[in-house]
Each structure stands twice: as structure tokens, then as C-alpha cells.
């Protein structure tokens, strides 16, 4: 899409500005460590799993549904793909396929509960997460599985290409595919429509339940791919998954304030993940205090979102909303996590991001 003019807007690109700031600050403080290619590669691959999960939940969020089962799902996938190979002797490729199929199946069940049983996606997937965790315990007996030792397996994600580990490349491929689907395929348009106003979408002839269902299956499948990648990269663990749930949502919501404010979007999410990762890494070079990372993550998230929300609100109030920005239109209300401002002082549905919280998909799949 063509943009008529260069836009230095802090709201849409605040993430990039912060990123630049981190690089300058940490680069100045620890030039030899921070500004090295090794460091770039390290950050790129360390955060690839988190970024994949951020992308996994993008489609359900755009469609107005939450998938909270991804934490448990990614964990199960890592364990399952390992056990299948080590204990059951399944070759690598079938093991991966089975694992992804299980992930998709979880999505199918999630979709069934939400669309057919009319349970809110929040509750449905939260319950599902608990069931998946139980399933994992049954499969593993609560013993951490022995990692797969073959170098083909570890090489799957750890082989380097142009210095980057393969995992980072997978992430890019995934992002490009998802971006194409959401921005350049009819189904992406339908998904955003359902997330924006379910009733209007239904009256426009869209099978609302179908798109909700599809988006959950996609998130289930991508999540288990991320689990497979994790197992190959770091070996299986019984507990890593839940810790990734929050960062994934943080990235998706933070991403919805970037590039296309008010919309959950692929590149915004990827940027959000890496801005945070760069900051965390920089801090690690400066101090070894462990809790600083967590504090940093939390503060960065809150600050970045409130900054973007504040910019948006100020814009609306001063009425400098852009009329003609060519490609993507900025939104009139505070996006993402901000509260919309209604002429009447009543809350309003803000961007599609807020819409995600407000609209539950209406139950009518065929």
C-alpha cells in the first residue's frame, strides 16, 4: 500500500522509536557486547518462540475471541513431540505432524465449545488450558522426558543461516504467511469484520461462527508448531508454557498500537516482541539482577501502551486525526487497552482491539 507522505507519527511508530532509543542507550553503555552481531542473533532466536505465540493468538483476537489455552498447548506440544520420538520411536516428521494435528484438534474443540455450546471464549479456553495440562501429566507421568539427541532434530531450529538460527527464519516465514492471510486474502477481511461488529458481519452474509472456529484452529496449530520449535531449541520442559502466555498477549496488544493502531496486526506484534527483547537483553549486559527483567517487561508494556493511548486521545481531542493517510487509517478512539472516549462520557467500543474484549462471536456456525 502506498503512503502519501512520510509520517513521523509517534503513535503508529512509537515502538520503533523506543527500539532506536534502546539501541542507542545500551549501545553507548556496552558497545562491544551490545552492538555485536552475536547479540543480534541471540536476541533474534531467544524471542522467536514468544513471537510465534504472539502471532498464534492474532487471528482469534482479530476475530474477537481469546485463546488462553496456548500456554498449556505449547507445553504439551513440546513434550509430546519429544515423547513420540524418544519413547515411541516415531520418526521426526510424523512426530511433528501428529503434534500439530493435536494442536489443531485442541483448536477444533475450543471452537466447538465457543461456537456450538455458546461458552465465552475466555472461559472455554481457560478451562481447556487446565484440561490440556492434565493431559500432559497423564502422558508424561510428571517426569521430564529425555530430550531427543539427534543432531537433525536440534539442527532443525539451531542450524544457522546468515548467522541467524533457523528458528528466526521460521518466524519470519510464519509472519509473512499470516500477514498475507490477514491483509491480502478475503478471509482476513472477514475475520476483521467479525471482530469489529459481529451482528453487522452476520447481516453481511458472513458465517460468524465459521471464522471464529477457523481462527481457533489456526491458533492451535501455530501454537503446537511453536512447541515443536521449543523442544528442538531448548529441549522439553514440563512448565515453560504458562510463562509465555502473558508475553504473547502483551505483544499482541502492544502490537495493536503499532503500524495500524487499533488493529491486531502481524508486524506490530513482531516489533513489539523484539523491542521488549532488546531492552531486556541490554539490561542483562549492565546488571545481573534477575528481577530487573521482569520489572522492565512490565513497565515497558504499561508505558508503551499508555503512551500510544495518550497520543491517540490527544489527537482526537485536538482533532488532528489524519484525513488522508493513504494506506491505513488511524483510529479515532484510543486503541488497544485504552478506554474509548465517548461524546457522552460513556465508554465506547474503541478500536478493534477493544472490540476483541467486547464482542463475543455469535453462535451460528453451520
Amino acid at each position, binding site marked *: *500500500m502506498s503512503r502519501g507522505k512520510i509520517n513521523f507519527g509517534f503513535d503508529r511508530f512509537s515502538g520503533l522509536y523506543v527500539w532506536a532509543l534502546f539501541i542507542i542507550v545500551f549501545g553507548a553503555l556496552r558497545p562491544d557486547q551490545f552492538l555485536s552481531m552475536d547479540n543480534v542473533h541471540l536476541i533474534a532466536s531467544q524471542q522467536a518462540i514468544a513471537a510465534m505465540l504472539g502471532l498464534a493468538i492474532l487471528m482469534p483476537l482479530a476475530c474477537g475471541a481469546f485463546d488462553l489455552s496456548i500456554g498449556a498447548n505449547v507445553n504439551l506440544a513440546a513434550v509430546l513431540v519429544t515423547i513420540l520420538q524418544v519413547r515411541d520411536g516415531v520418526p521426526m516428521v510424523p512426530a511433528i505432524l501428529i503434534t500439530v494435528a493435536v494442536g489443531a484438534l485442541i483448536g477444533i474443540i475450543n471452537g466447538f465449545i465457543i461456537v456450538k455450546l455458546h461458552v465465552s471464549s475466555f472461559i472455554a479456553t481457560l478451562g481447556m488450558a487446565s484440561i490440556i495440562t492434565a493431559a500432559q501429566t497423564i502422558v508424561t507421568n510428571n517426569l521430564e522426558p529425555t530430550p531427543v539427541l539427534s543432531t537433525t532434530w536440534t539442527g532443525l531450529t539451531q542450524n544457522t543461516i546468515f548467522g541467524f538460527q533457523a528458528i528466526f527464519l521460521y518466524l519470519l516465514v510464519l509472519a509473512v504467511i499470516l500477514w498475507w492471510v490477514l491483509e*491480502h*486474502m*478475503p*478471509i*482476513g*477481511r*472477514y475475520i*476483521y*469484520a467479525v471482530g*469489529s*461488529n459481529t*451482528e*453487522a*458481519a*452476520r*447481516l*453481511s*452474509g*458472513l*458465517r460468524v461462527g465459521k471464522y471464529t472456529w477457523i481462527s481457533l484452529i489456526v491458533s492451535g496449530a501455530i501454537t503446537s508448531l511453536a512447541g515443536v520449535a521449543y523442544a528442538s531449541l531448548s529441549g522439553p520442559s514440563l512448565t515453560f508454557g504458562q510463562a509465555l502466555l502473558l508475553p504473547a498477549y502483551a505483544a499482541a496488544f502492544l502490537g495493536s498500537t503499532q503500524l495500524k493502531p*487499533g488493529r491486531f496486526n502481524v508486524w506490530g506484534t513482531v516489533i513489539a516482541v523484539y523491542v521488549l527483547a532488546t531492552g531486556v537483553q541490554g539490561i542483562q549486559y549492565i546488571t545481573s539482577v534477575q528481577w530487573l527483567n521482569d520489572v522492565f517487561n512490565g513497565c515497558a508494556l504499561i508505558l508503551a501502551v499508555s503512551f500510544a493511548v495518550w497520543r491517540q486521545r490527544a489527537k482526537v*481531542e*485536538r*482533532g*488532528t*486525526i*489524519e*484525513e*488522508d*493517510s*493513504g*494506506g*491505513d*487509517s488511524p*483510529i*479515532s*478512539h484510543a486503541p488497544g487497552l485504552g478506554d474509548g*472516549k*465517548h*461524546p*457522552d*462520557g*460513556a*465508554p465506547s*467500543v*474503541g*478500536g*478493534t482491539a477493544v*472490540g476483541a474484549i467486547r464482542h463475543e462471536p455469535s453462535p*451460528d456456525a453451520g
Partner: protein
Amino acid sequence: MKAGDPTGSAALTVSDVSKSFAGRPVLSDVSLSVSSGEVHALVGENGCGKSTLIKVLSGYHEPDGGEVRVAGLPLSLGSAKSSYQLGCRFVHQDLGLIDESSVIDNILMNTGFPTRLGTIRTGAARRTVAEDLQRAGLSIKPDVEVGSLSPAEKTGVAVAKALRPDPDSEAKLLVLDEPTATLPEGEVTRLLEMIRTVTANGIGVIYVTHRLGEVFDVADNVTVLRNGYKVATEKVSALTRPELINLMIGHELEEISQEREAIHLTHGEPTLKVGGIAGGPIKDISFTVRAGEVVGIAGITGSGAESLLSTIFGGAPRAAGSVEVNGAQVRAERPDRAMAAGMAYMPPDRKTAGGMLELSARENLTIGSLGPFSSPFWLRQASEKREVKGWFKDLNVQPPTGAENQLGTFSGGNQQKVLFAKWLRLKPSVFLLDEPTQGVDIGAKALLHRQLLAAGEEGMAIVVSSTDMDELVALCERVIVIRDGLIVADLRREEVSLSSISRNALGTQAGGSV
């Protein structure tokens, strides 16, 4: 503040208010003043800045310059709180109600709930809300969800909410932004009655409408805006309707009456057959529409007229009966099947059912069918943009270059045009429209009517449900009148008139022309 003196003293003075959006001026040095007890009408074409001016008064928009005084006290610009405390009350174009909440919650949103020791006193809340509703002449239960109410009832709730007495801040100015866009005649009369009561208590009223008849009914003075400039403020008694229209659009307008006479529609085969449908207030309704026919649906609130088209299309549940399009049965509650069979349905409520306000106008316009520019794997946005541009031009959507802007940033009338295009471009064989020209200015209304009649000439079967009887009379050669869920009259050609429609709708002279 001095009390008394109900008329004469200024309830509101607006001086030289300007406002632009991204360098595009929307209001330019607008001044206006409203006395206590005066009804001041504010009129002008779609997108001329009426709602923007009102949002300046409510503190939602901060103007680039100018001053606003309410009962002599300066409004702190851009502050909703200041606006409320000075005594401004609003019924906004989109009503500002929360559909998911009950009537009680909506009405008490501003003034707060009665509490004891921090706990909401549910009984007391229900009682005061019941009083508010009664004052607004509404007979609805305080506990129902606002989303389940008819447009007319929603407007009533918004008015009741605005007029709710607040001991801490006395109302000085009531602003109504197109409150009657979807109100049937009877309720318009009641609303105007209510406005007169309000002014008798010394409150100034600003009244925005596209139904010029109401200006002459209720207003003392009228201010006309054009492209953000004030054209004139006149005494209504010194104006004629053509003069007013001339002020609004800058030239004479051939008014829309009897456009249908210009075109002689030839009727083809029966296209839509509705057989004994029931659901909600609808008890048993059957009728047939032929290709090229333009049929109107009329009926008072609660008669079933307002949900008839939605039930036929599959938006609302259908309990019994059949719907047939071009000989093919259409299943209940399946808008997708209805569309595949060749039906299109434009819902009455832009905010909840018609528009996706956070998506761009382009995305709204094309969502009904992406077929012309897409394969499953590629949506060709360049050709999509080209088509949308064409529609913007055909329907004169303002701003003409705004296709990528969010639908919510368009003025009400322009949103309506975008949604009209959304359905018309599908070239359905049956086109059902609920309140198609709500909030659309008179010039644009004529334009949309011409588009409809041209479509009818090409063989589209058109059914229009409207609370605006003038519209039905102007557009339709046949009007079906619904009362108590049944058809009470099927008026044809010369039988179609304002009086015959309202007589049958109200049932004052039953069986008149069945």
C-alpha cells in the same frame, strides 16, 4: 446565578467557534445564541458540521478557537465535565446508550445510583428510573436491555436520560441531534410535545433535524450551516420551506415528491413471496412483490413493521412461514443463504447492525461481496479501491477522498450513503431497506431515491420500511400497512397517501381500504 426570567436571557452563546480535522476546516467562525425557553433549529447538508458543533458544546471536541458561554458562564472548552456542570444535556446522533446494559444502568450512568452505605438501592433505582421513563412518556420496563428496544424506544430512553433531574446541576440547555431520524409520526409528535414542556421550564433547546417539517412545527429560530460556515439565523415564522432549502443548499431543489411518476415501472414476475411468516410481534403476514415493484411497509412502533424486513431476510428469528426468492426457499435466520438467493437487507441501526465503525469505509462498502476483485488467496485492493471511489462519486459521499478513513469518522448521513452503496452494488433481485434515508439530507435523499427507482426499473424488487411517511408516499406505488402483527391494508397507486397510511396504521377507521 439569577433565577426566573424564563425567556430572553441567553441559555447559550457560541462565538466564533472554529474546528478543523487534520487541516480540513469543518467549522469556520460559527456564532449562535439560544435564549432560555427557545427552540433553536440547526440545519444543513450532511457533513456541514452540525454534529461537530454539538460535540464542541459537549466538550468532546476541543475547538481550535472561539468561546462558548452557557447561561453566561464560560465553558471550559474540551471538558465534558464542565459542559455537564454548566447545565448542557445531550441526545447525540448515535444516542450514546450502551446496548448491553439495562435501561436503569443507562439512565443512571451520569447522575449515579442511589446508594445506602455504598450499596446500590435497587428498588429506589428502579423507582426513579420508572419516573424518568414516565416523564418521557415511555411505557417500557426499567430492567430490559437497551439493545432489545426499538429505535423509537431507544431515542426515548436517551431523552429520559438527558432530562433526568440532577440536584447538583440544573439543566439549562438541551441539545438533540437528529432525534427523529427513525421515529414514526406518532412518536415525533410526542417528542415535540416533550420539547415544548421542556422550554416552558425555561430551558433552551438546540434541535438538529433533516426533516424540515419539524423545524416549522417546533422551532422559534433556525440557524443554517453550509460547509462549516453559518449562512444565516432566521426567525422560522418569517421563512418558507423553499427559502429554507435555498439557504441550506444554495439553490432551489426540485423536491422529491412523486419521483416515481417520472418513471413508469413495468412489473415482471413475482420475485419475493412471503407466506404466513410469524416471529416476535409479527403474527401472520403474507405478500408478494414483483420484479420492478417498489413496495412500502408502514406501521406504528410495536406493530411488527419495524422487524418485518429483518425477519424476512433472516436477521431476526422466524417462527413460522416461508420466504421464497425467485422460486427458491430461503431458510430462517440465514442471512448468507438469503444473500445467495439474491436478497439484500439494509438494517435500520448503523451502530449495532449496519456498520463496522472501526473499519474503513472501503472495507464496509465491499464486505458483502469481495468476489469481483479476489480469488481465495488474493484480494486485489487496487481494483477494490477503484470501485469504492466510483461509489463515493456516484453517491456524493463527503469527504470524497475519505474511503480509507474509519466509517465512524464520517458524518451520520455519509455513513448511511456508504452502507446504501454496500448493498446496492450487490445488484440483488430483492432489496429490503429499513429506514434507508435516516439522517440523510434532502438533496441526498432525492439522490438515493433516484438510485432505488433506477434499480427498480432494471427489475429489482424493492421493499422499503420507513417511519417517514412522506418518503413512502414519494417513493412507493404500493404501501402495505401493518398493525398488531397483521396486514391491515395493501394500498395501491392512488390509494397511497399520508392520510390513508396513518389512518390504517393507527386503526382509527378500521377496514377502510382492505
